[in-house]
């Protein structure tokens, strides 16, 4: 369940912004993260121990991933209890000279926003996102719990 490091992605894309966003997107949509997010969305806030027990995972692995998700702004630690930062995550993969990747935490913007410059979206840390793969996490969430 390992996610490529940001440094590996930087070497691959040769672009710091794309690498950073691709790393965030990879962390957010990996199987481990989706299991944790699925539990948080379904059951609400939970401690590391509760998440580990319910998902039958090692606490160390869960804790490390939650910290990565917190760094990406996807979850937040509230006095030892983890909460999702928003109900929606939007991953956008666009085309410029090469690929562009953007992960937005929060409600996706209306369809019209798709025309925004991918490069600008990639520079945004949060609150932006478009609909190319919008709702991927939600759909994968349904796959997890049909």
């Amino acid at each position, binding site marked *: 369940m390992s996610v490529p490091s940001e440094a590996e992605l930087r070497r691959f894309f040769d672009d710091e912004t794309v690498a950073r966003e691709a790393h965030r997107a990879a962390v957010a949509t990996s199987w481990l993260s989706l299991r944790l997010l699925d539990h948080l969305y379904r059951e609400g806030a939970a*401690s590391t*121990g509760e998440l580990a027990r319910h998902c039958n995972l*090692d606490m160390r692995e869960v804790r490390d991933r939650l910290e990565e998700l917190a760094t990406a702004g996807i979850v937040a630690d509230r006095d030892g209890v983890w909460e999702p930062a928003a109900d929606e995550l939007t991953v956008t993969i666009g085309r410029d000279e090469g690929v562009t990747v953007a992960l937005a935490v929060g409600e996706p913007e209306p369809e019209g926003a798709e025309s925004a410059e991918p490069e600008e979206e990639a520079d945004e840390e949060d609150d932006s996102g478009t609909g190319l793969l919008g709702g991927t996490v939600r759909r994968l969430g349904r796959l997890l719990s049909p």
Partner: protein
Amino acid sequence: MVDDIVSEIKGEFESGGSWPYEVDGHRFRTNPFAEKWPDPSLFAGYEDELRRLRENIQRNVNTFITGPFGTGKTILTKTMYEVLTEVEEYEPVFVAVQKGRFSKTMAKRILDELGEPVDSTATSTELYDDVADALERRYEDGVRTVVFYDEVINGSEGTLRQILHLQRDVENWEPVLVFNGTAHMLDQIHGRIEPLSDRIGDEITLSGLDIDGVVELVNKRLRYYCRESEWGDGDGCSHDEGDLAPFTREAIELVHQDITPYPRHIRRECNEVIEAGARAERDVLDFEFVRATLAEETSRKLEQLSGHAADVVAVLDEQGPSTANGITEALEASSYHIQEALTELEKEGLIRATEGDRGIEYKLTEQTSRELSNLTQS
């Protein structure tokens, strides 16, 4: 100068090394997890089991409490014993079964606990009759005697027969007998002392604490030993409200995840972590500190493994979770030696026992797997 060193060393001996340990409004003179069970009030978890035992005693049902070593059988029976000493119509007796036959010492202990005179020149049979008479008199006076036999594992078959016959030999009366031993002992009763086995009315099996039980256990220990808490005769501190300081709940959850959650194992692991915390003068023993401490200890323990224990770890690493029988077959060793090794590894927190499809399965803890992988790479 020399006097100073001697006095300092004496102080370290008295405090246990890194103590006293003072953190954020709490003060511990000694390690809260060093002593076994200083007080039955530290009993935690097993609420359902305690209630079931209460019902059995009220319904006059003899009960055999079983479970592996360290699951908390003795503290459970001791807690019930303490409760009954405060209930008027009951007279509890706590007897530690000693090796060998129903000895004079055991009979004397029962008479002593009942406040009966003990004839030091009496034979074993005479003492046994005195015990039966004393129990019968109590029955006639409306007092219900409950006899707790601790560590029945120590007793021979003869001891068991004699214990069970005591019930038969007291006319028109059924004293409540509570036994504490391993499942192996109960099997022995059913297998070899068949006519008496129907006298065991219920078996309560202890299999470890859930996370809430562990949190309660840790809090009670901290509260009992913290000089600032109400239990410690202080003005009160957050331990009185269920706080786990200097541990965080997440840290305790990691301990619970990593070892078979028997009270004895939890106590031993917390003992090591808080000792390391006191040594490092840490204010908080959080997830990362416990993680690092456990990793260090696991690595050290793995490097010291030898013989069957090392072989068992290798098998579990290669084959994954397995029963004792599975490991015995894989290693072509005697089941006695494998069981010994498994018990030792479980005590050390390197493996964990869980109830699987094939019975009790053993598996490496996550920490052990990680450290094995690190050792292999290095």
